[in-house]
């Protein structure tokens, strides 16, 4: 029963979603909406699960004094602090008229978001520019025909996505060589490649979905296939 019931739930949910796409009327349409609401609620709980799991791992690191445990302490303090401030702002905002959300401008949470979270996450992301440049310098080499083609495509797309390169060749020709070639690469070879990937993924999803709905694939409930 421990296996049959989850398989039955999966099969029913899968069939309802598949059928309701083609027959959006009751009972399938309504069932789909109900299942959709359930998924939203389960996903909301998953956020809490993730946060609790992060806390558990961090507390373990702190209590065992493993390597880099101070970082775990910073995670705990940041998480609990943000949570407390959010709750406080949300609770006190409800008493105001009109009600104020914890995310509204002027709240403590909004201050944290604007002046701590935003610059920190922007800093992390901007590091990519340095790593991409360094990786391009070291790895983007014309070692063989395929690598050379990729190099040429990259050269024209990078050059064509900014106006400088077309400006530089404007004394020779008025034709925007870089932007035209970048546009051509994106519109034809890129679109063809993306379509191939999309169709491949879609076929893969369909086949694995069918296997799950029919109960052939059971790895999601802790068992193997077959």
């Amino acid at each position: 029963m421990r296996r049959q019931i989850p398989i039955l739930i999966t099969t029913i949910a899968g069939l309802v979603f598949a059928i309701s796409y083609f027959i959006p009327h009751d009972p399938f349409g309504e069932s789909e909406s109900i299942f959709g609401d359930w998924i939203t609620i389960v996903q909301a709980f998953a956020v809490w699960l993730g946060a609790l799991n992060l806390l558990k791992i961090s507390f373990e690191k702190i209590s065992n004094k493993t390597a880099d445990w101070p970082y775990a302490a910073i995670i705990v303090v940041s998480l609990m602090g943000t949570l407390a401030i959010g709750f406080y702002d949300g609770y006190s905002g409800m008493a105001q008229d009109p009600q104020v959300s914890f995310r509204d401008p002027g709240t403590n949470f909004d201050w944290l978001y604007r002046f701590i979270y935003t610059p920190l996450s922007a800093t992390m992301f901007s590091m990519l520019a340095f790593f991409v440049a360094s990786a391009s310098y070291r790895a983007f080499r014309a070692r063989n025909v395929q690598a050379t083609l990729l190099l040429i495509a990259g050269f024209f797309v990078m050059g064509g996505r900014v106006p400088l390169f077309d400006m530089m060749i404007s004394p020779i020709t008025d034709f925007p060589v870089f932007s035209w070639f970048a546009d051509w690469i994106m519109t034809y070879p890129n679109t063809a490649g993306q379509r191939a990937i999309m169709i491949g993924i879609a076929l893969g999803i369909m086949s694995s979905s069918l296997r799950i709905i029919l109960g052939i694939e059971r790895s999601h409930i802790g068992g193997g296939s077959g």
Partner: protein
Amino acid sequence: MLSTIAMVLSAIVGLSLIYLLIRTIQGHPVERRIVFIYIGLAVVLPLLMNKTLPLPITKDVIKLYDQLEKLQPGSKVLCAFDYDPPSAPELQPMAVAFLKYAFKKDLKIIIMGLWPQGPQQAQQAIEEAMLDPIIAGKNLVQGEDWVNLGFQSGNEFVIQSMGTEFKRMFPKDNRHIAYGDIPLLQDVVNFSNVDFVINFSAGKPGTTEWVQFGVDRFGFDMVAGNTAVQAPMMYPYLRTGQLKGLLGGMTGAAEFEKILDEKGKASTFLLAQTFAHATVIIFIIIGNLAYFSSRKKKMAGTP
């Protein structure tokens, strides 16, 4: 003054790249730290110049603009903010430019987010748009001219449920006002009651999910603004007409500002991106020269 100093420094940095090129040909490869310094300078110096580059407008941006121009004053536009602060340098200028255009044209904006940070980015974009004297003069009212429904978890299932009823996913707006009490949403039940959808997206859930679960199923017209990394994946949807227009990365944002005649941040940031691209291209050339010269030496040394 600062602008002139930055321009002189940029010229010196540019000339020093030629020196690096010569050193590489002579067999002295460039260290990784040097690459970092050059990229840092290529991004920072242009930001001090306060200059913009002449920019041609691509057909995808023109298509998007044409779609927006078709909207009549009073049209309801659903605006999905699916990004967070790391992607804001590319997407926030697009959002601000769009909101300025929409408010000036008296479009009614319904904001929501599939990313938790999205509605907060929207709030910041609204604040920036409201600084425009024309928009400030209109005395726009939240709940009547725009509404922020906030974030809802559930990714693509939120879109799917909104096809039946928006209220189901967003029973209250971000100020805790019940859906039914918001004047702007009085006759908005589902997608059939909005005239247009625009999505600013930095990943999943984002434009792909909106096309697959929204456009394909409920048949609304949609355009999108994407990060430069994500934009190439949207071309198949553009070619089929599932997306009516696309703004790709900083360049798309700058083109959008230009076509709307709005002087925004993207036009300034584009110069930094241009210099960074040029620096990366030069380092790729230097890297390849180093590779070929070392290969030549190896081959010459092989008996």
